[in-house]
């Protein structure tokens, strides 16, 4: 039983880890918790759906279009809305992401209706692979692999490419980075684009598992945040670990305590972690200077 639970936990955790990573990389740059992350990904998934069903394109093309759209949506959201605020206080920034998410939610409902739709996907959620006593769907295996590879790519990008390193420098110290010739504004926009793409991959992996409708990413958004809080909102690696941890904890809870209240676990974890270690398990705390 336990290995089975761990396997499901890992698969769910992959989605949470992706969402957490997407949330954390923008949070690190701008200190904005992007509540629109989920719905940006949801709309992008609908774009893929539109290409697959209305225009009957192939999977690769449809997903490619969705990811490009996601990137532009992220860059646009930052450049056209967040950056143009008159009073970018923390409160106002949060509210802006909320307003945007509501508009996206409404847009999706307006365009595609609130019905639950079957999302075509090249990998089946019903086919099962067996590893000893553990049986796991091909979709779950694919989810674990794709998420793992993508996150690895993101870390390689930030650690080893010239652009990535420059971006990290800007995140840590915008003024110093500007002196070194890194245009801070471009970096912020790029960060939102990348994070939107990561979120969209999570959405494309979620849609075939459940069904596609405008509430697609609500749960994943909350879990992504819970994971990020668990690992530390400032620490990408921590947030990813938090995602896997949350997936496993949640499935353990579902298996041994109660299936109905599985979703409440995320909330409890947020509260408990914040109570005992407000900066997350792997994060550091900063003091304000006066």
């Amino acid at each position, binding site marked *: 039983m336990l290995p089975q639970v761990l396997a499901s936990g890992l698969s769910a955790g992959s989605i949470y880890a992706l969402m957490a990573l997407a949330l954390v990389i923008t949070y690190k740059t701008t200190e904005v918790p992007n509540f629109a992350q989920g719905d940006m990904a949801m709309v992008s998934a609908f774009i893929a759906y539109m290409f697959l069903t209305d225009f009957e394109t192939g999977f690769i093309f449809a997903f490619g279009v969705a990811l490009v759209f996601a990137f532009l949506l992220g860059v646009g959201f930052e450049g056209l809305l967040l950056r143009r605020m008159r009073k970018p206080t923390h409160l106002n920034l949060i509210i802006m992401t909320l307003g945007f*998410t509501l508009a996206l939610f409404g847009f999706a409902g307006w365009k595609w209706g609130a019905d639950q739709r079957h999302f075509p996907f090249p990998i089946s959620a019903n086919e099962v692979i067996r590893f000893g006593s553990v049986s796991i769907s091909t979709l779950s295996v694919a989810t674990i692999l794709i998420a793992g590879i993508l996150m690895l790519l993101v870390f390689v990008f930030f650690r080893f490419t010239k652009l990535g390193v420059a971006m990290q420098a800007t995140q840590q110290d915008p003024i110093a980075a500007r002196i070194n010739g890194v245009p801070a504004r471009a970096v912020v926009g790029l960060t939102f684009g990348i994070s939107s793409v990561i979120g969209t991959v999570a959405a494309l992996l979620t849609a075939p598992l459940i069904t596609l409708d405008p509430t697609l990413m609500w749960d994943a958004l909350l879990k992504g945040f819970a994971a990020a809080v668990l690992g530390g909102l400032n620490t990408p690696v921590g947030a990813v670990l938090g995602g896997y941890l949350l997936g496993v904890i949640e499935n353990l809870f579902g298996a041994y305590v109660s299936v109905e209240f599985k979703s409440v676990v995320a909330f409890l974890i947020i509260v408990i972690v914040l109570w005992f270690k407000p900066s997350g398990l792997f994060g550091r705390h900063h003091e304000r200077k006066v």
Partner: protein
Amino acid sequence: MIEPTRDHYQDIRLFTARGSWIKLILLLVVLVSLPLLLPGYRVFTLNYMAVFVIVGLGMNVLVGYTGQVSLGHAGFLAIGAYTMVLLMTRLAVPFPLALVMAGFVSAFFGFLLGLPALRLAGPYLAIATLGFGLAVTQIIAHSALFGGHMGLVVPDATVGPFPLSGDVSKYYVIVGITFVLALGVRNLSVTRVGRAFRAISDSEIAAATMGVDVAYYKTLSFAVSAALTGVAGGLLALMTGFISPGVFTFTLSLMFLAMVVFGGLGSITGAVLGSIVMGYLNLEMDAFQELPVLGPALEGFSERFMSTVGLPNFGWVVTGMLIVFTILIEPRGLYGLWIRALDTTKRSKSTDADLSRSGPGAD
């Protein structure tokens, strides 16, 4: 020296100018006669807007005054509604008492949710409230006690010997309570506790060095805000006659935030106006189609580019855009626009803006 006989009560009294009594009486006359003038089905809309106004007052205390974001107020609305209904059905508690209890129980949960707020700033708190709102509906939807997904029917309510049967009798109860609560929140805002709330959003550090126990007041503001929202929940149950978890969604919580942002954070008048507008919008999501010229145009547009079945969702787009543009153009919302308009008219009347040379006797 300068104003030896200043009456300091002037600062905090409700009616500063002579005309304000007349305004109040006018407002009361309008409120009392409104349901008699409007067609019956509109009274339901009015009740709905009044319930939103109460939530708006609560959101204003929390978000507007202390600057803490809540994305889970639909949860408090649910707690209030279910508390009242369960007390009435299971324990035969009379409606007025059950409504008061709805406020207290909700306040208690607000206090609990406020506890983590002791240690959490901005993003963390918003995340915790998001989780709270979703958890509440989850629990309700999966518990037999709460009627699960099917929901609960609200029993008939009476106030003393008077049955609250029609929308009109409910109107007087709901609007009466809304009026009293608005007055109470206004009084709170000009006295010690309200001032401490507002200080927290301006500067927590300064507030603390004035002796304000920031953690306590943050929690307290959660409790006050939740109490108001709980009462609103009870009244919502009263007016709709039926409650189910599907009512208390994440988007409703966002709507609650939208109304205080749109109206103007920190202003009671703003919160009331914003809530009236958004309450109407939320109930009449399809009202856009009935607009004279825009309605058909919108329908045509939907048919060509969007979808007609999805048209009711257009309201969410509008709500979201209202938030986005409020924050972009005037972060203080309707109230801020009003203040700006006043300022421009004042400035055109006098050019006395030199404040630095404030010599004695100048006033």
